[in-house]
Every structure is written in structure tokens, then in C-alpha cells.
């Protein structure tokens, strides 16, 4: 079954030049498992997220939301279909090439921040700039970025010295430091109270628009969907526009 295209202004044809700067997925399918037991994680998924757009994907656990992010970010190769980020093919066979494309064009925000325990907030944000070769170490000023997400005064703190919301703010700064075209956000409010959840998603929406980043946010939290431009629902690997 094919997914329905979202009836919003953000959904256009893949040939639109502006789409190529964001995320475009066409006919993407992914199966997990072996010959004896197979799970259809993604089933012929079409998705277009343009720069500056915040798209939410909701759905029950095991529906394929994480698989969608994995394929969109080049962490996994789909069995069929195409994925482009900023016009770059994220389904190339070479893992090294996909890693490099991810480093250059994709930012990830994980559940609870997924910060590294040994690093201060400033170092967490510096880290993505150190993952490439010296010639590739361009991006935003980490301290300036921390200030933008309201963490300037806690730049020397380590993850265990930060609250859940603060960890997510640092995670967002870390994802934005390389000036990516696409931000893939995985359950950013999973461990936050209502007020913090709204704060974080508002921040994501603001950053998406201000920096023209295409944002895909996977979430269970229907409370924060008001900040999103588009909402998709995923069930059994199929993606559809949410009512």
C-alpha cells in the first residue's frame, strides 16, 4: 500500500528544486529479520519535508518511526526506494559515504539527549565538528549556539549536572552545530514534563524556521503537535497524513 501525500503546502513533487534542499523519500520500504520471520518496518513510504518545515510523525510503538529516521539519516539502507537529503542520495551502498553525508547534512536529536557522560555541554556541541577531517571542521560557534538555546551559563556542566530539558537543549545545539539541511528528532519529549515538552518543541520549530532546516520529529506526545507544520501518522510501516 502506498502512503498518501500530505495535503499541505509543504508537500510537493520531488522534482521541485526547493525539495532537494530538504528531505525527500520516495517508495521507501525496509524489512527487518530473516527468511523465517520478517517485519515490514517501512512500507512504500513517501515523504517530503522542505527547509524550514517541522514535520511530526506519530504512531504506536513498533510502527516503524525509528526505522523511518534511520533510513532518512543513512543509518540503514532501505530495501527499495530513494532517499535524498539536500539533493544527496542517502542510499548509496558505501557505509563510509553515507557516514560522511550524514556528518555534513544531517543532525540527530535523540531521546533524553543521548549526551556523552564525559563531555561538558560545550564539548558536546563541539564534538560533531571534531568527527570529520580538519578541513571539514566548519560550522557554527558552539558557545554562541548554546546561548541561542538558553544554555550559555551551563556550558561547563556535564550531562548528570543538567535537567532533562537542559540535556535536550544541548542535544539540539549539538545537532545544529554543523548547519545541517535536515534535523531528525527522536522522541525529544519522552522524559520531560508538559511545560518542558512545549518549550523544547517550540525551540525546535523556531530553529527550523530561523535556520531553514527540514525537521522530522518522531513523537508520542500529541500535546506538542500544535507547533508542527505537518503531522503524519505511521501504522505498521505505512505513513499517512494525520487527521
Amino acid at each position: 500500500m502506498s502512503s498518501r501525500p500530505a495535503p499541505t503546502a509543504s508537500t510537493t513533487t520531488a522534482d521541485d528544486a526547493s525539495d532537494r534542499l530538504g528531505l525527500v523519500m520516495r517508495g521507501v520500504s525496509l524489512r527487518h529479520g530473516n527468511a523465517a520471520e520478517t517485519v515490514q518496518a517501512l512500507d512504500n513510504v513517501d515523504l517530503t519535508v522542505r527547509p524550514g518545515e517541522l514535520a511530526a510523525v506519530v504512531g504506536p510503538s513498533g510502527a516503524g518511526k525509528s526505522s523511518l529516521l534511520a533510513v532518512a539519516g543513512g543509518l540503514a539502507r532501505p530495501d527499495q526506494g530513494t532517499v535524498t537529503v539536500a539533493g544527496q542520495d542517502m542510499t548509496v551502498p558505501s557505509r563510509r559515504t553515507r557516514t560522511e553525508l550524514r556528518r555534513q547534512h544531517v543532525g540527530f536529536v535523540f531521546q533524553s539527549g543521548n549526551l556523552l557522560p564525559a563531555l561538558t555541554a560545550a564539548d558536546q556541541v563541539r564534538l560533531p565538528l571534531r568527527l570529520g577531517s580538519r578541513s571539514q571542521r566548519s560550522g557554527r560557534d558552539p558557545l554562541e549556539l548554546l546561548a541561542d538555546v538558553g544554555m550559555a551559563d551551563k556550558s561547563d556542566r556535564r550531562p548528570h549536572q543538567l535537567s532533562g530539558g537542559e540535556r535536550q537543549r544541548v542535544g539540539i545545539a549539538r545537532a545544529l552545530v554543523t548547519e545541517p539541511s535536515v534535523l531528525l528528532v527522536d522522541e525529544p519529549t519522552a522524559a520531560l514534563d508538559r511545560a518542558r515538552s512545549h518549550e523544547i518543541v517550540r525551540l525546535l520549530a523556531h530553529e527550523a524556521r530561523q535556520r531553514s532546516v527540514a525537521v522530522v520529529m518522531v513523537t508520542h506526545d500529541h500535546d506538542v503537535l500544535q507547533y508542527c507544520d505537518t503531522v503524519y501518522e505511521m501504522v505498521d510501516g505505512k505513513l499517512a497524513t494525520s487527521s
Partner: protein
Amino acid sequence: MFLAIRELNFARLRFALMGAVIALIAVLMVMLSGLSVGLVRDGVSGLQNLPVTSFAFAQDVQRDSAFSRSVVDMTAVDEWADQPGVADATPFGNTLVNTRTDRGTEVDLALFGVQPDSFLSPPVSQGDRLGTEDGIVVSPTALDAGLQMGDVVTIDRLGTRLRVVGVTEQQDTFGHVDVAYVPLAAWQAIKSGTAPGTALPQRAATEITAVAVRAADGKSVDLAAGDTAAGTESLTLKESYGASPGYTAETTTLQLIQGFLYAISALVAGAFFAVWAIQRKPEVAVLRALGASTGWVLRDALTQAFVLLAAAVAIGVGVGLALGALITGSGIPFALSMPSISAAGVGLVVLGLVGAGAAVIRITSVDPATALGGNR
């Protein structure tokens, strides 16, 4: 380095404990190295100090006891002196004796019988060189054992009396026994069991332990050709160490212990970094998802292992050297040799890295997609 150094600083207690284990192994390695060098020096320094390139022993002699079993006829000396590339060849006698001074001090001596006018006659740090028929030149370590200049020692059961006339410049020991250089004629009498005042049997006057051969500078000697001509069996100077009593057994034992220590070091480092790698899997997944290449992650992990190993080995070697300095001169055969200790230190770091490398290689299989969802 970016992450490696910060993690070392952050988990400093954990890394310090691991470093302490490696440092203790390094201390043990320095002590073993000191013992090894000390035992070698105690076993064969008398041979090491000889200006000899090879010894020609009796044909088919048992190699590990050649010095005590070999009997060579003096005619072989001339044959060897005529060989191409040989600068000099001279008779060499060797035997171990128990002696007692007139003051009642019992001293064991390894007698090196040499012709006083030959190149084997040792320079002295005090007293006179070999010359008089009953004069001996002893190792300075014999003075530590109770001998004094001018002492007369009597060989047990034989009654031959020898006078200490000189002391060599450096430690000369053979099979852990102090060396005493003795004129060849006196050695032949002692070796043949000829009591003082008794005529030396003619056969004894032509027998020596081996022919000491010195190659001309920059020349090599065809030992096989020389052996064929002289009817002997040659060992190079280094090979002849194995003929010193207990040398092979001691060095093999110590090398075995050192080998085990290297293996233990690699295993300890490997086990620690294996656990560390397993604990870090979620973080590695995040790093890979953020765009870290496999090479970056491996380099970072190995840098961390190298910094830890190098620092721990440096501290261990430092402590070992301090302990070694206390032991040196205490009577234990112990000598600090920087080349040996440096090699041991480098060996520990390299093998530790091999162990760590084998352990951290598993992080290359971490799936970055596990950073997503509730996997952490």
C-alpha cells in the same frame, strides 16, 4: 584525542585502577629485567670481558658443559693461529676449585688458565698483572667475598698454594663464581691433580680446555675450516655462554617468566578494554549516528589505550628503577640495564595495545541505528 582525553579525565578512578595494575606489571618487569641482567653478568661476565671472538673446544663435546668437559691438545693452538682472519690464538684453561685462605676464609674460584704474555692476560685495577708462577689475578668481587691482596689461598685436597697479586678492572665471574686468572702451567698442574713438588705429567702439559681465538679487526674467521684443520669444535663467544654452568637454565627460566608477564599484560589490558568497549556501546552508537567513521572511533579508543598504557608503564618503570637502585649492590645478582628496561617497557605498551586493539575492534560492529528509539 578529543574524546579519549576527556574520558580519561572523567573516569579517572576507573582508569587509575587499571593503570595501577599495568604499573605493577611494569615494576615486576623491571625487577625481572634487573635480575636477568644481573644473573647473566654473574654467570658469564668473565667470558664477556675476554677479548675473544670464539673458542675451539674438543670435537663432539657436549655444548652445555663444554668448559668443564673439553680437553684440547696444545697443537690445535698453532693450527688456529694459522687460519685466515685470525689475529691471535692462545691456550685457555678452565676449572672450578674450592680454596681456603690462611685466615680460614673459604672462597670458590673459577680458574682461567692463561699464558701471562698472551692477549688473555687481564689488565689490573690494583696490584700486578700475571707473571709469577703462583700469582693469581682475581675479580674485584672476590675481595667482597673475603679475599685480600697478598692473600695466599690453598686449593682443597690438592694443597696447591696461590697468591693474590692483582685485581681485575671489572667484575669477572663464571657460573656465579669469582674468576681467578692463573698462569697456564699452574692451571695445568691443578687440572691434572698434580700435587705441589710433583712433576707435571707430560700429557697434562699439552692439555688445555679450549683454544681462545681472536679475529683480526674487520675480518671474519671460517670456524668450520679451522675446526677441520685443528680437529676442534668452535663456539662463538656468545654461544659459549651456554656452556657456562646453569646459564641456559637461568636465562630460559627468566625469559619464560618475562614472556608470561607480557602475555598477562596483554590479557589484562585486553580484558579491561573489552569491558570498557561493551559499556561504551551506546555511546559509540551515538558517535556513529553523529557521523563518526569507524576509523575515528577506533583511533580514539586506541589513543586512549596508548595514553593509559604509556603513562602506567612510565610510572611502573620509574618505581622499578627506584627499587632496583636500592637492591643493586646488596649481594643479589641484580643490574639495571637501560636498553633492556626500555625494550621491556616498549614491549609492555605494544602488547597492551595489541590486547586493547583486539578488545575495542568489536566497537566497529556497533549499529548506529541503536542510538534511536528507547535502546539507551
